[in-house]
């Protein structure tokens, strides 16, 4: 009866609370289970951003945080220059994949930017 009262006045049942807690804990469990995926995501993020701006690869931060009912990815990317890295010529006459290698002009970042073989 108390429960009926609660329901009529919009109070959440404990099973609904349990379900919500479970959903959230599993979201973060799944993320924390795959640190190598987070590293890969970071490396690819750098690669994409570097096509447009020059980023500081050593200071990039990627974190996952919980905001109420959702998980958010927070990326902090210091930008060194609003121009693409010089070595690259985006409108390469040959087109195709030619400029891929020279894009990596700094020393390798901490995160693996090579397509790492499964180990």
């Amino acid at each position, binding site marked *: *009866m108390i*429960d009926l009262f609660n329901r009529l006045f919009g109070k959440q049942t404990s*099973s*609904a609370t*349990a*379900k919500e807690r479970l959903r959230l804990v*599993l979201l973060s469990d799944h993320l924390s289970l795959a640190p190598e995926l987070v590293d890969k995501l970071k490396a690819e993020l750098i690669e994409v951003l570097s096509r447009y701006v020059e980023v500081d690869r050593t200071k990039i931060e990627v974190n996952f945080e919980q905001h109420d009912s959702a998980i958010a990815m927070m990326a902090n990317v210091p930008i060194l220059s609003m121009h693409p890295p010089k070595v690259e010529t985006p409108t390469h006459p040959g087109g195709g994949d030619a400029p891929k290698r020279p894009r990596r002009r700094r020393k390798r970042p901490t995160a693996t930017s090579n397509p790492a073989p499964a180990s």
Partner: protein
Amino acid sequence: MHELKVDPEPAAESPPAKRGKAIVITSGKGGVGKTTTTANLGTALAHRGARVALVDADVGLRNLDIVLGLESRVRYHVLDVLEEKVELQEALVHDKHSENLFLLAAAQSREKDDVDTEAMRELIEELCEQFDYVLIDCPAGIEKGFTNAVVGADEAIVVCTPEVSAVRDVDRVVGLLGNKFRPQLIINRVRPLLVQKGKMLSVEDVNSILRLPLLGVIADEPDVIISTNKGEPVALRADSKTGAAYRAIAARVAGENVPAPTVELEAQGFMAKLGSFFGGRR
């Protein structure tokens, strides 16, 4: 009293030449009913005519023999076989209720780390040559005991209760198992009245999160406790709804098309009925 009659002809279900199937019963969390599930599923499969071996992989905390009422018959255990002290046939304990059911007990005074993983795989393979089903009762946890229980299995059944901690652990175990074992879910200890009042996660709640093929749902009923007290699996009792639920699970495991698992509300008191009348579904 209510025992089902045993079919005297063994292995009526499948031809003996075929290799049997090894299924690990696991959960991550302890106390959710892995051993009870193993005992009852094994009993129910054996009563369908299949030849069944139960392997207690919970080395150091042996319990499957107790649930089956076979504790006084155990002479050798799984480590005796793995270390080649006795032949497999000598260590298999014949069940007292079911003609086609055998138990390989765990070692009580040894540790899980004593088990050689590769030897365990070979043992399960050997059992698969002799039996239609090999059910492996996995210990709680995800350490070496889990690895050893899983190593020889073809498939997995995961047992979960409608609790946040149990669901989280099953999720973790399913992640560790990967796709290879095609895990199927049994939700144990469901209390329909509590679910209706919104005080317990429902079968749908649990499986909306786990998203596994649902093999069965077992209600939290006193007859399971009574059966365990006596050492007579509830699957033997023709008059028990819980027993029927286990027999339905066995039918699904054997590949029969059985209606989707459900739990019914037991006869309730007046106030509970009134509550559910006004309270609606959830």
